[in-house]
């Protein structure tokens, strides 16, 4: 569901390089710390998350700071390696969505006419399909793997970015410098690649960050429903096992259920903060004259 753009009262006069707001700093810190854990997982995680390194259902101790799961795996190590899986899926799916969305937006907004009509009707159709049931259906048929999730989430999420980029390209296309380039004999491809694409980069980044936040949430839902990669455990799959072993019925929920959810929320919220801060500079609709 598309939320309307959020407008905050802008400062009276923004300087050329605006100072990052508290929101931006918080977002970068949240996502940065998770990304650090993901990149340096082998050094951050004390144990191999795929090995039983303790007794089943151990409570948190100095040895296992978040205890162990039902087969004696260290939950903290699972969390750290899960960051890798969740972030990878989120970023790759967002990449797929942004690349397709940008391509469609550029073609649609630049050439207009029949191509535009066809592509935008396709977007309408995708947006009118129920997102999660569609993903569940595709994931169930294609089989659970990271690649499936990346492709499925990416293929369904490009519709929104393509619309936003299209309207930007339409407004850029009407500017004088494009007319001038065409007058100098530049071809369609050159105009798109050299003159329109650079103008859309800021918006592309915003759409990418938002798509990543959405993809991480969706991945967690799919994994929680047992459609995640059975070999690569993400935060969603940790919660799937916690649910399957009824962790919330015992005291285990405080260290088995809370941490993965906090990690998902932190990452998604951090990305939302970053997108929110970037959007004020990238989205021409939000810039007050």
């Amino acid at each position, binding site marked *: 569901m598309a*939320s309307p753009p959020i407008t905050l009262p802008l400062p009276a006069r923004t300087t050329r390089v605006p100072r990052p707001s508290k*929101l931006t700093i918080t977002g970068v810190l949240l996502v940065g710390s998770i990304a650090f854990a993901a990149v340096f997982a082998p050094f951050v995680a004390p144990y191999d998350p795929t090995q039983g390194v303790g007794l089943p259902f151990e409570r948190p101790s100095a040895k296992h700071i978040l205890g162990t799961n039902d087969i004696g795996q260290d939950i903290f190590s699972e969390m750290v390696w899960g960051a890798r899986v969740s972030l990878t899926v989120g970023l790759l799916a967002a990449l797929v969505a942004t690349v397709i969305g940008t391509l469609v937006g550029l073609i649609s907004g630049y050439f207009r006419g029949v191509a535009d009509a066809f592509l935008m009707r396709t977007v309408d159709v995708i947006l009118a*399909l129920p997102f999660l049931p569609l993903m569940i259906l595709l994931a*169930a048929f294609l089989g659970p793997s990271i690649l499936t999730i990346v492709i499925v989430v990416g293929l369904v999420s490009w519709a929104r970015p393509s619309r936003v980029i299209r309207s930007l390209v339409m407004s850029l296309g009407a500017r004088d410098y494009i007319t001038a380039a065409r007058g100098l004999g530049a071809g369609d491809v050159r105009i798109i690649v050299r003159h329109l694409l650079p103008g859309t980069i800021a918006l592309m980044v915003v759409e990418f960050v938002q798509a990543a936040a959405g993809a991480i*949430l969706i991945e967690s839902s799919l994994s929680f429903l047992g459609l995640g990669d059975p070999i690569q455990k993400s935060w969603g799959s940790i*919660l799937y096992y916690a*649910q399957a072993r009824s962790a*919330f019925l015992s005291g285990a929920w405080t260290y088995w259920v809370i941490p993965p959810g906090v990690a998902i929320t932190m990452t998604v919220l951090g990305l939302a903060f970053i997108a929110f801060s970037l959007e004020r500079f990238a989205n021409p609709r939000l810039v007050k004259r």
Partner: protein
Amino acid sequence: MVRVITAKTGQYALVLLIALALNFLLPRAMGGDPLQFIVGEDIGRLTPEERDTIRREYGLDLPLYTQFGNYLGDVLQGDLGWSISKKAPIGDVLKQRIPITLLLTGSALVLSTIIGVALGAFAAWRRGRRSDVATLTVFMFLESMPAFWVGMLLIAIFSVNLRILPIFGFETPYIRYEGLSKVGDIAKHLILPVTTLTIVSISAMFLTARYSMLTVLGEDYITVARSKGIHERWILFRHALRNALLPVATLFMLRVGFVFSGAVVVETVFSYPGLGRLIFEAVVARDYPLLQAGFIIATFTVVAANLLVEFVYPMLDPRVRAHG
């Protein structure tokens, strides 16, 4: 106006057709035997003769376009096939589950709309102040939490530790309540899932209400009303809110379309026996026909809600009617 609606109806019919085509093609495009998606794991135990019989029964020996025609015909007549795991016609299974989901998601929809609009209007009225920014951050936070996790936490807190609400299900099993106590029992089971859905879905309502209220409060007629000396509260409720509710009404109707899709993870956590839980059960049992039927119902609802918006919006907003 009529032409616009015909065009829109055609477009939404296309969405349905594409969803059905996807359903039809997925089992056939997977390389393996489509039979496997109909009989499930039993396929290994069938003799070649039995397989041929079933193939003929399901028309799998016919050319693809005839198969697709038959499939469309069946769905249009309300025949969604046979569920392997439930061992019953899918239509009958759905009939039991749909009202349960409607009760759950309907309650959450109404609740999130009322609370979201009230808070959104209030935030717009106090825009730019510290509390406005703080509320925005809170709602971004609510939107970032995975729905199933919120449900798990609520169960751990209210059902397991405080022991004041039931853990799972639609009603207490093995006890036959009658009359009012039955209603009470069902309501008790409803509280946590409805709260979960409300928490995770309220943000969009709040943001829409806030944004639309901000836009309306900036309009000239509000300034005029203020300059006439009309009381601020009167302006807020009589002049601004009525117009600001238009986008909210639209969002509400669109949300009606997602009553089934939104319920999947929450019903799974609470073992709430609605359509969402059914989709999960279909995934676990690898009951593909059932899964496909769930997808079709969800798509149909979204399409119907979209059409509803097209028809109802002009009635709500005379300005659209005049231009249409």
